[in-house]
């Protein structure tokens, strides 16, 4: 026969568990509510690269509704409430000094075709207004970021033409130096610095990016480049997929002093979910990703935070964030940790929209400002 105390104990445990799950449901409901009011804008997804590697960009061989060996497909995007995505037009560093420009055009092309093939799911977007319009139509705004300055082949003409093709951010380097900027591997000691940051041409590139309204992305760059660009750029800058160095001291992450500089310049750091950047080890969980959000908020305020999952660009993602359907769980965790609705909305999309609008406002391409060579 069960004793009275064990019955009461069991009841207590059960009620706690029930309360917890109710609270969890409440957080999730709130998360979903907030995500229906403010678009979740993710800074970096490598699905286009998966399309190249797995299908040679032959979209007629893919069904994005049933594709099941990637982090990203259309049902998962919908479940994840992903309202806007910067798709990466990435080509490897090996193409530098070879056919990087042509291969980058092919990646830009596959993003365009993906949007044309699934117009009910994707709306090609090139502006902050487009993101808002797509959100109102319940389609995922699809923007393009070129990941790596090597794609430009050191040519401002190429930068401008890529802008005309809809590219709206350029990550200044991938994991290799360009002839005008150093990458993060320089800080790790794995590669020598070539420019102590940016060369003169690199600085000209920053000015031109400001002029035409191209977002400057500092993911993958060396710390010197981070600091120099933050000093030089007239427009706010982004880290499309980088996390907090103080939480995980990986040279792909952003140190606290740089976070404060980003705050001063009203930029954004979009947190990367890759395990190795979250915990500096092979494994991670959702809570540890939320630690990065908390840290950045504590150091530099909630106005500089965003989401930059790096899905389909990395092999190891955290438990609880296995694919793009899991964003709401992370949002629920932030709410559980006491984030206010306004802070969550800022991280979801308001911060990125602010940055984007300011970059658009400062761009002078519609004036008579002459282009530079």
């Amino acid at each position: 026969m069960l004793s009275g105390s064990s019955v009461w104990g069991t009841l207590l445990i059960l009620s706690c568990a029930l309360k917890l799950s109710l609270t969890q449901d409440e957080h999730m409901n709130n998360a979903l509510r907030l995500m229906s009011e403010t678009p979740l804008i993710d800074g970096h997804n490598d699905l286009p690269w998966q399309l190249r590697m797995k299908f040679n960009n032959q979209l007629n061989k893919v069904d994005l509704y049933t594709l099941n060996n990637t982090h990203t497909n259309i049902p998962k995007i919908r479940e994840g409430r992903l309202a806007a995505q910067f798709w990466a037009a990435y080509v490897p560093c090996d193409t530098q000094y070879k056919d990087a420009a042509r291969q980058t055009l092919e990646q830009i092309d596959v993003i365009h075709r993906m949007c044309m093939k699934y117009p009910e799911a994707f709306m090609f977007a090139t502006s902050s207004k487009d993101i808002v319009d797509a959100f109102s139509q319940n389609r995922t705004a699809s923007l393009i970021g070129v990941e790596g300055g090597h794609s430009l082949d050191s040519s401002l003409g190429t930068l401008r033409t890529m802008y005309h093709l809809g590219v709206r951010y350029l990550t200044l380097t991938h994991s290799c130096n360009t002839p005008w900027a150093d990458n993060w591997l320089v800080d790790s000691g794995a590669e020598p610095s070539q420019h102590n940051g940016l060369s003169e041409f690199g600085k000209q590139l920053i000015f031109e990016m400001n002029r035409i309204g191209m977002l400057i992305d500092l993911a993958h760059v060396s710390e010197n480049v981070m600091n120099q660009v933050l000093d030089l750029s007239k427009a706010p800058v982004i880290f499309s997929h980088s996390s907090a160095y103080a939480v995980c001291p990986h040279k792909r992450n952003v140190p606290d002093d740089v976070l404060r500089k980003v705050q001063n310049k009203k930029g954004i750091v979009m947190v990367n979910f890759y395990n190795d950047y979250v915990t500096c080890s092979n494994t991670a969980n959702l809570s540890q990703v939320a630690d990065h959000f908390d840290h950045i908020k504590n150091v530099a305020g909630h106005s500089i935070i965003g989401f930059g999952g790096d899905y389909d660009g990395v092999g190891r993602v955290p438990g609880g964030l296995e694919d793009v359907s899991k964003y709401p769980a992370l949002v629920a965790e932030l709410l559980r940790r006491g984030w206010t609705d306004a802070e969550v909305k800022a991280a979801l999309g308001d911060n990125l929209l602010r940055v984007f609008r300011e970059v658009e406002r400062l761009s002078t391409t519609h004036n008579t400002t002459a282009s530079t060579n």
Partner: protein
Amino acid sequence: MVWDELDRRVKEKQQVLSICGNSFKTVGKAFQNMISRILHGGDFLNLGTNLMLCFLCAMTSGDPTTGSAFGLMTKYPLIDGHNDLALMLRILHDNRLSQVDLHNISKVATDINRLTTGHVGGQVFAAYVLCGAQAKDAVRLTLEQIDVINRMCTENPELELVTSAEELNDTKRIACLISIEGGHSIDSSLPTLRMFYQLGVRSMALTHTCNTPWAESSSTIYDVYQRENDSLTDFGKDVVKEMNRLGMIVDLSHSSWATARAVLQISKAPVIFSHSSAHAICNHSRNVPDDLLRELKENGGLIMVNLHSGFVACHGQANISIVADHFTHIRKVVGSESIGIGGDFDGASKFPLGLEDVSKYPALIQELMKRHWTENELSGVLRHNFLRMFKEVEKERDRQKAKGTLPSEAQIDLTRVQNPCRLVLRRPDHQTTKMEQMYSKGHSELVVSRSLVWTMVILISCLCVLMDH
């Protein structure tokens, strides 16, 4: 003088040039002859000739026929099929438009003032890059030429960049269109072709003076991609089909006749020779023989007569009369509806007396008027034939769009294009993992050591417990 400047710029770029970027340096010398001819051999720079021309202008200014040529061209401003000002901007000014007054440019045949005097209402500007860039940095160089034309045409109020027949017809400014001169610019990549279209390119010559891996040139200067009986490969046909789908005009100037015939067999839209003349008048391989003219007529296409002396007069002095002979001949073979003008100014070294630069078109029209060409025929030559052809190309695009034709995913057989500058891609996570292993080697070794120590501790403890028992 020009070559010192080029050498200086090449040295500045040495940091970024590799074997795959050497096109600028290694083919720089190829320009020397052309530039020397332009700077030192071109009549239009000779002061005495200029004075003579002024005299001729003065003599003819009272001529009612000249007056009516201007009047006609005011009513029907010329749409010219091919101009290489963009190339000269690169060679002479490194595309630095800030250093150039586009109204009045020295050492070239084209600028806004002279286009206006010449009653040019629309100009197709070629975004041309050297054949030496093929399999190297042709794509990037082409993007830069597209960019310079774009900037030129959007930063000057007298010019307007247009991308449709309607815009071309309706503009009150000088319309600019962008063309590509040579399939080597697309690096055998249909996505690249599509991106060029999106950048505003509306016409592409399948070859320049070099074969591509998929089409044959009329020239044998470059000994590359030689094939027997395969002037337009299967991929070449895919290129033409995709151009039809996009609404990009197929340009057969510089292609071999065999390539041209193959294209005319399969193209569903009218095609053009943007700057070629009549082979029957001057038997240069760049010109078009009569049988090909007839196939072109059936296709609804256009031959836009090139004014370069070397293509107009195979023997003797080129002059306006001989140029007009080309028009007369082509009209006789296929009718005036198939004719346009593609001057090739700034892309060639010598031009006939009286047609030295883009201000001189009215003199040519005057000659045709003297030969009793009607207003209807001349309005066709000047612009209506081009507009009609362009609209047909757009109609084919619209037909295919309505049918739901998808962008082509055809890819060239890699064995046809292997070269040191073409990378066969590897999976990026192998690269990243390799790099990260290099970076985090110390860190991961430490992690392994710690777990090894604890494992040893536990094992030893268990052993001790067992031994106690």
